[in-house]
């Protein structure tokens, strides 16, 4: 199902015409002042489509030609940053998908953009590739001071990568905030208890939700926790552990979207 991730990116980059609303990058309207708006933006849309018959270096050189002040040293630096030094003179047609993805990032950051837009950057990468990508993006964000916009449906990945998320459902943004906040909100009231006997506990407090022989869940605000503990102790139940439930982004996502099928 198309929820509009790629479309959103295309709208931002001026690859698709905007029917209503505005895209403003660095203070310039993408429709009215395209060249200024796009000047400090780097992007990979969908796949990292590079010129297959050229070498990685030639591909970068083509991009460098189109901007002012990109010298060969900058190209070398970027190649080192994306760890392609060894294969940069090879034809792109011989690259693996992960290498192409990194070359795509290299061409996108060559002109030191302050906004880097990536469409599913880990799509088709192996676990090692994903790890490398994550590290690379962290370096870019911290050292090169880029804002990075990633679209993805891989929530575990975003959980690792991002500070802030927007959830899009059927083309509408239903939530935009810090990841930690979203997770926090979703797990606000849920507490997990580990005890020796849940059956007895159930008799004392009937609101509890049994998970297995030793664990149960309870939906109560923080202030009520001591009271519950007291009750359990009074009835001779041994408490091994009490903790707040740590929700993943995925849980939060389903909570927000109502568990709809995602694209």
């Amino acid at each position, binding site marked *: 199902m198309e929820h509009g991730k*790629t479309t959103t990116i*295309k709208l931002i*980059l*001026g*690859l*698709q*015409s905007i029917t209503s609303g505005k895209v403003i990058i660095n203070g310039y309207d993408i429709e009215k002042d*395209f*060249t*200024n708006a*796009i*000047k400090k*933006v780097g*992007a990979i*849309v*969908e*796949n990292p*489509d*590079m*010129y*297959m*018959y*050229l070498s990685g270096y*030639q591909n970068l050189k*083509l*991009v460098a*030609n*189109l*901007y002012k002040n990109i010298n060969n040293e900058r190209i070398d630096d970027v190649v080192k940053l994306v760890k392609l030094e060894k294969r940069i003179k090879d034809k792109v047609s011989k690259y693996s998908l992960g290498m192409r993805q990194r070359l795509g990032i290299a*061409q996108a950051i060559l002109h030191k953009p302050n906004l880097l837009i990536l469409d599913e950057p880990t799509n088709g990468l192996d676990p090692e590739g994903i790890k490398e990508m994550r590290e690379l993006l962290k370096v870019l964000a911290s050292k090169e001071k880029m804002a990075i916009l990633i679209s993805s449906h891989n929530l575990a990945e975003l959980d690792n990568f991002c500070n802030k998320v927007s959830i899009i459902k059927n083309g509408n943004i239903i939530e935009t905030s810090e990841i930690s906040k979203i997770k926090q909100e979703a797990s606000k009231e849920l507490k997990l208890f580990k005890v020796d006997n849940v059956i007895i506990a159930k008799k004392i407090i009937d609101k509890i939700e049994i998970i297995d022989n030793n664990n149960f869940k309870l939906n109560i605000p923080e202030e009520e926790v001591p009271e519950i503990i007291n009750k359990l102790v009074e009835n001779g139940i041994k408490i091994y552990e009490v903790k707040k439930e740590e929700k993943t982004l995925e849980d939060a996502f389903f909570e927000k979207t109502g568990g709809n099928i995602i694209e």
Partner: protein
Amino acid sequence: MNKLIKNELIKIFKKKTIYITMIIVFLLIIFMNCMFKFANNSNYSVYIYSENYISSLEEELSKLNPEKSSDVTLYINIKSELELNELMNKYKDSEWKLSIINERISPFITEKNTYKYGAEKNEEQVQKISNEMDSLIAKLEQNDWKYFASQDLENANSTIEELERQKQQTEDTEILKSLDIEIENAQIDKEIALYRLEKNIPYGTDYLNRALTNLKTASSSIIEYENQNKELEYEEKKEYNDALEVKAESKYILDTGIDINKTDSLKGILQNFYSQFGIFLIVVIVMIAGTIVSEESNKGTIKLLLVKPYTRNKILLSKFITTLIMIAFVIITTIIMQILVGGILFGFESLEVPVIAYNFSTNVLEEINIFMYLGIQTLTQLPMIILLGTLAFAISTIFSNSALAITISLLGYMSTSIINQLIIGYNLSYMKYFVTMNWDLSQYLFGNLPSMQGMNITMSIITCIIYLLVMLIPTFIIFKKRNIKNI
């Protein structure tokens, strides 16, 4: 903008396609040059039958009975053919003798056999014709071709005398006029016989003989057109002009002895460069123009370009300008290849021979340096090449389909002559603004009359520019508005 064009050129020249196509063009040029070099010029020896064919003819002849009225015509034909062939075989080493046998003796053979075997048998006639033939053959034996030429001259002179005599016997202006025309025609024969004797041109099929034949045909049609009572139609005017051109050229050939239409020389091939190699140029150019945008659209690399700080108009314009640069590149490279291949096969010295062009407005022949001539030809062909390239460019941009773009453009090129013939043939004067009528400017060269009445070079150039804009403007608008599809 310059940077965009530079990148486009890098992309084209880093691809193998351009090299492969140029190598194929190079091989085709070598092949065609070899054909010009080793192709047999037609001559009468090709009319000599093979042994097998002769024996089959003889076998057929033996089955026929000349006494039967149903067989007799065929019998005479085969018999005459065999006799003619025997005679030609005897003199097959001499071009002029074959020519004489073919043109002058062969009617006698048929006539003789008709009297010998036909319905009206006449021994006396047979004898008379045989004697005449023998005397002609005797001249062949004596290697005396001038005899035949002087005969021609005598015949022409006596015809003229006879006609002059007839002229004095009549007062009727109509008859006088027709006699005058006949005299003029006889004078052409006389002129040709004189040329033959003076310039020492034995009979045959070489360029001098061709010039003589052309001179005769052209002069007769000139006389015909000049003596017409009514105003000449446009088509007739064009034919009259063409005849004037052929006459002037033939005379030039006979006077100087230079074969200006020689095809097996570097200059001769270069002179006809666009008619021989035009199709190769168009194929390569259309291929480049038909892929420069659609390939990137289909492979998704267009997105790389479109998110760079350049407007879409600039990106498309840079691709169009690149196409124009490639047109120049392909033309120049092909010409250089031809000069090298032709020079190695035929020698470079023919480059010093000027091209002879007939100027229709001044009625004189002009000598033009071959490179100058080639340059002029290139300019006249450019509108067509650019328009076809633009057509491929526009279709490939709008439909993102290279195959469609290339096919349509090539079809356009190949159907040009048919379309033009139809338009001229049916005299569809409202079609004179159609693009194929206008994109070949060579029709205006040297004061020639254009393909259709009412056309002129300014109009043609404006028409071509309008067609160019009609193709380009929608292409730019569509490209600018286009949403980039997911791949």
